[in-house]
């Protein structure tokens, strides 16, 4: 029999002893919630009235014509409250926190997206909130820090390690082992110790449930392929679950190819040969690490994909051949983003743009009576600083220089 919390050989809960009871309680609460149809209904209602679920499935007519192949559909997680699929997970965990009666939440954040979502949930549920964010990311993503603070959260810059996402996760655990009694750690993706991967995947499955119904209604049959970007893997798991039982639907996870899969500067765990099995951040999966087991620096234009590990559930599906993995380079991402804006008036997040890249590579070779779905995990307009920088936009720079001089005066 499979050990609970394991997916094939992957997963587990590698946690300090001091959290043993906390995880016991969390597992119990989660198991009870999962078994209770009223809980799921409460979740769906909340997402329908507070966010805008069901999010639409948009037929991208122009792009379909442009590539002259498959009908391209886009699942619009960007239209969620706070601008990404992160809201699903966070609001779900918020309901669980209410059940457990805890008064405080903490979270890690890389790009800031999960931090903003958690701060939002905390405001909505009246919880105290602390967000850990690598110092590098605090500097890069100041707008998100501003919003988190305005939403009432405390943002703690993490100065250890590479000062990015993985270090923020470590720091969140350090907080949690100190204040487990009143605090819940809202893990932002389908990673970390059990039950997080299962829990986050469950909340995100709402994406796939909707997409399945929508494509049947709008297109008349299942899609041939479904594309999602993979950072930790939560948006991918979210949409994939709607089609996993249908072997005829090919599932494609797209990782950050950074400067290229052979450059050493990427975050492709499953699409490159650079990762190996390991145990860190509480779980067993494929990590980008050196021969000693030290985690490596990763790179991506998309902060949300710039992570050393990957969901144990996805690693298992990859190993079973149920999900194909590809990588998109930074440059391909910028091109896909530009094309999507110009042709459809839609601005995918840099993370989401990775999924678009691979779909665009393949759509033209498919038949017009086939459909593909791209999971648009978030919107890009929140990332003006990163996007304008990546496009190296001269008038943006001029604007910032002027504004800076104005404030410095």
């Amino acid at each position: 029999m499979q050990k609970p919390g394991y997916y094939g050989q992957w997963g587990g809960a590698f946690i300090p002893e001091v959290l043993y009871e906390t995880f016991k309680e969390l597992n119990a609460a989660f198991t009870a919630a999962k078994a209770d149809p009223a809980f799921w209904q409460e979740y769906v209602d909340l997402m329908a009235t507070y966010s805008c679920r069901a999010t639409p499935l948009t037929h991208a007519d122009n792009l379909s014509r442009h590539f002259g192949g498959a009908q391209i559909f886009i699942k619009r997680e960007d239209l969620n409250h706070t601008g990404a699929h992160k809201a699903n997970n966070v609001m779900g965990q918020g309901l669980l926190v209410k059940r457990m009666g805890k008064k405080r939440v903490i979270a890690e954040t890389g790009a800031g997206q999960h931090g903003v979502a958690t701060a939002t949930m905390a405001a909505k549920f009246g919880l105290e909130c602390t967000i850990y964010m690598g110092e590098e990311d605090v500097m890069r993503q100041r707008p998100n820090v501003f919003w988190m603070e305005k939403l009432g959260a405390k943002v703690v810059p993490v100065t250890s390690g590479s000062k990015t996402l993985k270090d923020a996760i470590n720091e969140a655990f350090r907080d949690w082992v100190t204040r487990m009694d009143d605090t819940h750690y809202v893990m932002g993706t389908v990673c970390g110790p059990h039950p997080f991967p299962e829990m986050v995947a469950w909340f995100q499955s709402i994406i796939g449930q909707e997409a399945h119904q929508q494509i049947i209604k709008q297109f008349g049959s299942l899609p041939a392929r479904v594309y999602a970007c993979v950072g930790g893997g939560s948006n991918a798991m979210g949409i994939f679950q709607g089609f996993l039982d249908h072997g005829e639907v090919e599932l494609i996870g797209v990782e950050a190819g950074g400067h290229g899969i052979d450059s050493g500067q990427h975050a492709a765990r499953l699409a490159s040969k650079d990762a190996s099995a390991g145990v860190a951040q509480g779980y067993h999966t494929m990590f980008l690490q050196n021969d000693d087991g030290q985690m490596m620096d990763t790179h991506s234009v998309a902060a949300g994909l710039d992570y050393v590990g990957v969901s144990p559930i996805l690693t298992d599906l990859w190993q079973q051949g149920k999900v194909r993995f590809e990588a998109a380079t930074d440059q391909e991402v910028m091109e896909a983003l530009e094309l999507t804006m110009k042709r459809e008036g839609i601005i995918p997040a840099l993370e989401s743009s990775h999924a678009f890249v691979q779909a665009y590579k393949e759509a033209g070779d498919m038949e017009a009576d086939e459909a593909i779905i791209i999971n648009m995990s978030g919107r890009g307009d929140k990332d003006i600083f990163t996007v304008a920088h990546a496009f190296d936009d001269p008038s943006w720079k001029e604007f910032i220089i002027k504004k800076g001089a104005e404030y410095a005066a």
Partner: protein
Amino acid sequence: MQLEQSIRAELDRPGKDILLMTHIVLGYPSLDINREVVRQMVDNGVEIIEMQIPFSEPMADGPTIVRANQEALEAGTTVRECLEFAEDMCKEHDISFLFMTYYNILYKYGVEAFFKKAKEIGIKGFIIPDLPPEEGEEFWALASQYDIAPTLIYAPTSTEERMQELAANARGFIYCVARKGVTGKQTDFDASFDQYMARCRRNTSLPLAVGFGISCRDDIAYLTGKADIGVIGTATINLVDDKGPEAVGPFIASLR
């Protein structure tokens, strides 16, 4: 049973009401300084030293040790160097040495190969804070096989039921975390701490080590009679940072 035996033997020696276990991060600030620090510790009566093999994700450690891990790695410290250093120490000094590290270091090395190597070197136990018994089946089996103590941890949050469960697998001693949180912050010793220690004692026959926030003679005095081993961690790292390795000997000497 090697480790428990040596502990019991030390405790049986006259005047030894409590043993001292100290901690170093290998490669921080350098292996040379580690060498000097260990010498000073041993010369001043420390009975057990836990040598932390640095890891890039030291999730259960506090800021000082986190920084030490990081700087050790930045200076290029490798696992192989740590093992060689450990081998030297075990040869040079007749006290108990343990490895403290995170599970990935063993995992990547090969868990069995790591046990084998540690045994060869003369290491008596492991402390792996991110490996709960539930995840450690292979690890326990190898620990028995190689007779290296797989030190387990009690925390203030552990129920008596859980302590019993842990005790069943534990060897060497039980590492009682003095308080919630990570290494390096001061611990308040109060009535609830005493109750916690009593609970620990009730639920194992192994010696008890107490760590997290132990930094001075008063702390050790307070622990004496309640615990068998006092663990000094962050305090010596800070000391070496501030005053250099020469300060370690007098500090250790002052503790009991």
